[in-house]
């Protein structure tokens, strides 16, 4: 169970596929238009329950509870050997210039 007042992230469907704008590519028109937003849980709940939250600006939003205590997961990704190759190309080009 996740306690009332915990900081959480919810997901909400704002428009079903049939409710979406007519001027969008087919693949987009087949999927719902959704929102993620974070805030303080207004009552005790379990993951995937439909809950109400109070956002940091004081608004209320209702949606499915997806995550408690959301953290930032983006970082610097995997090792990309091509970056070392780019650096090598640049330094080689410059070395040739310095010898000319």
């Amino acid at each position, binding site marked *: 169970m996740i306690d009332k007042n915990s900081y959480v992230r919810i997901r909400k469907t704002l428009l079903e596929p049939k409710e979406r704008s007519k001027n969008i*590519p087919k693949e987009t028109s087949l999927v719902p238009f959704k929102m993620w*937003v974070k805030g303080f849980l207004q009552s005790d709940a379990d993951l995937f329950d439909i809950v109400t939250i109070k956002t940091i600006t004081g608004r209320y939003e209702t949606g499915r509870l997806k995550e408690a205590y959301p953290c930032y997961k983006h970082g610097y*990704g995997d090792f990309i050997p091509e970056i070392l190759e*780019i650096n090598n190309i640049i330094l080689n080009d410059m070395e*040739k210039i310095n010898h000319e």
Partner: protein
Amino acid sequence: MNNEYQEFMSKRNDIILKSVGLDYSKYEFKGIGFDYELMMNDQGYNLEKIIKIQSENMIGHTPLVELKNITKYARKFAKPGYGARIFLKDEAANLSGSFKARRAALSVHQAKKLGFKGVIAATSGNYGAAVAALAAKEGLKCIIVQESFDSKNISQPEILEKARKCEAYGAEVVQLSVGPELFYYFLKLIDETGYFNASLYSPYGIKGIETLGHEIANEIMNKVGKFPEAVIITNAGGGNLTGTARGLKDAGAIDTLIIGASVNLYGLHMASDDDFNKKSFTTGHTGFGIPFSIFPDRSDVPRSAARPLRYMDKYVMVNQGSVFFMTEALAILEGMERGPAGNTSLAAAFSLSQTMKDTDIIVVQETEYTGAGKHILPQLSFARKNNVELKFGNPNKEIPGKNIVFPKDGSYLKHQDIDLNELRKSYLKRYKKIELTDKDYDYLSKELMVSIKKVKELMI
């Protein structure tokens, strides 16, 4: 169709009007045009006042550096006597890490002045962080609305980082899935909160950048005794280009060539759920640059203050691989680690410099901050995860969404021209069936920076 969706879209003009505190109808001409200069100069912000507001908020007077090593590198591939000196304005030094703070400063100042309780902006880019930072300083609440994830709940790492930065300044971030319906929810939030729409396209959003044009003109004049021959500007929604060009001209640099540069994302649809995570640039690309040039008023205000075809002398594109390549060159040759998207104009300048005399000066007018998510490593790592192939070769053979081609060596990094007359023709398409008056033609001539005779030619 959802009734609420239709309801908000039909109320859009009323909602927007209240949220920018600006009556656009007073600038409208009879016919198709409007008084652009009056709209820009009618908001009570002159240069002195803008500089004061920005200075008090740690914005502007960013370092102008000569990229001596990159210039030397470019000259390797130029004919004798060619290879313009490349200068760079380090806009990452602004509050919140990009030139966008210049734009946010006036919007947030205006919101405070008019007594709004909060500000709201629709942006997945650096502008969100800028609005959030300035709102924090002014004690205003802030909501940033982002297009953020696809139907598989996968987000661009760059956009996740921008969300984090907005939250660091105390803003609420509303993240939406792919699609133009973002505008509907944006309107709904404005209506619900009564906050000020800190639009990128209001006169405040553009006038704030005029100081950047002034700084470039004056600083180059002080350093080398002349105005720069060219200033190159990364172009997406058109505001950066419009504001910088206006500032340069206002400072007297009327002969400086205004060059727009965008990342080539031809073939990727901006509203496509499938294409969303196949691109490695979320801004500064042709997917915004082209449509906003040919129809500036597609923005979130009735009349956009960003009108790039009024100022653009030349428009070029570079591919994703070239921008990543130059991002590395900036780090390992000049000791400046800066965000990839902001280096679009730098990549173009490297190639353009080779077409200019070695006594000429080309100024790259921005950099942006870099960090987790918003960096060459996670962005390439994300591309690879989305089955985009990374390879070396001729970057101009790159197919956006399929591969990223890095230059095999510096000689392969070449810009490609975008035909401005083709853009002008596209702009004019919607007026073909309308009976136009002399006043309309005069307006179109200013909009497209060509003679009335040329407007008529392009319309055929």
